[in-house]
């Protein structure tokens, strides 16, 4: 019997190549404009997690997990958490925890509102990679029901 091909059909793979970068870009847009328009770090992070999931579903786990393996996931997850905590501790310069110490800038500018945009980036990294890790663990690395199915 021939070796089973990973992932879905050729049409799905072709369309995925086009759409996945757009979904990723939309997540980054939602995150960067979180202090101006509805959205923010959490929603943007979930959207980029969905774009990674899109790749995994279309191409199969072997192809896609080459780029995003456990080390990358744990690195970005920890980086996001430490960045957010660092922003919180930087408020101690001005007096108390979570003080907005950076200059506020002009309202409605992209680079305004001090630490809020940095916090959005930190939460974006954390949520995006964390939810993707949960997806891999729950849906891909599940416990095999018989011995023939391979464990990753």
């Amino acid at each position, binding site marked *: 019997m021939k070796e089973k091909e990973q992932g879905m059909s050729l049409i799905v793979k072709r369309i995925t190549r086009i759409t996945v970068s757009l979904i990723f870009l939309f997540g980054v847009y939602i995150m960067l404009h*979180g202090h101006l328009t509805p*959205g923010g770090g959490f929603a943007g992070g979930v959207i980029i997690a*969905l774009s990674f999931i899109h790749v995994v579903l279309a191409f199969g786990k072997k192809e896609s997990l080459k780029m995003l393996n456990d080390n990358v996931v744990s690195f970005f997850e920890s980086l996001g958490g430490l960045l957010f905590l660092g922003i*919180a501790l930087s408020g101690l310069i001005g007096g108390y925890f979570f003080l907005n110490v950076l200059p506020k800038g002009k309202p409605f500018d992209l680079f305004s*509102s001090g630490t809020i945009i940095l916090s959005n980036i930190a939460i974006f990294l954390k*949520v995006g990679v964390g939810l993707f890790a949960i997806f891999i663990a729950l849906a891909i690395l*599940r*416990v095999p029901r018989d011995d023939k199915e391979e464990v990753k």
Partner: protein
Amino acid sequence: MIELHVVLILMIICAIVAMEIKDLLSSVIALGAVGIGLTVEFLLLRAPDLAITQLVVEILSVIILIRATVGVKVPQENIKMRLGYFIFALVFVAVFLFFSKRAVAQLPSFGDPMMKIGSLYNSLALSKAGAANIVSSVILDFRAYDTLGEATVLFTAVIGVLTVLRASGRKK
């Protein structure tokens, strides 16, 4: 407010379908319909931040549920409806409705919150935090402790899932 109630009734019907239907995949899809209904409710109540977050989280959870449940055979159990259970459920629902009616009557009317701190945030958000989106300035500046706790919860959840399902633990 009539559209609010229509969507709410649709959500209740979908929830009942999700519980009662035999097929697992159909149940997951009905659950997704409940989440989309909740998104529409948030949009009708003019909370676009919540609507975006609810929509994407709902999509993610439906994908995970479908990927985890498709092809899984769940043994069906036929629970016989006894008369005692039925009477007990009826009494419980009656008590719940009685007390919830009294509790809802005590709530302040829509758009008039009991805590006056919300109007303070509204007036201070632009000058103190400098963010045009007031929701963002509340969750990341005024009440950032809550967001720190949420980030900790997510971190703990990821670690817990990866610990339970790790590959090296089930070699034998």
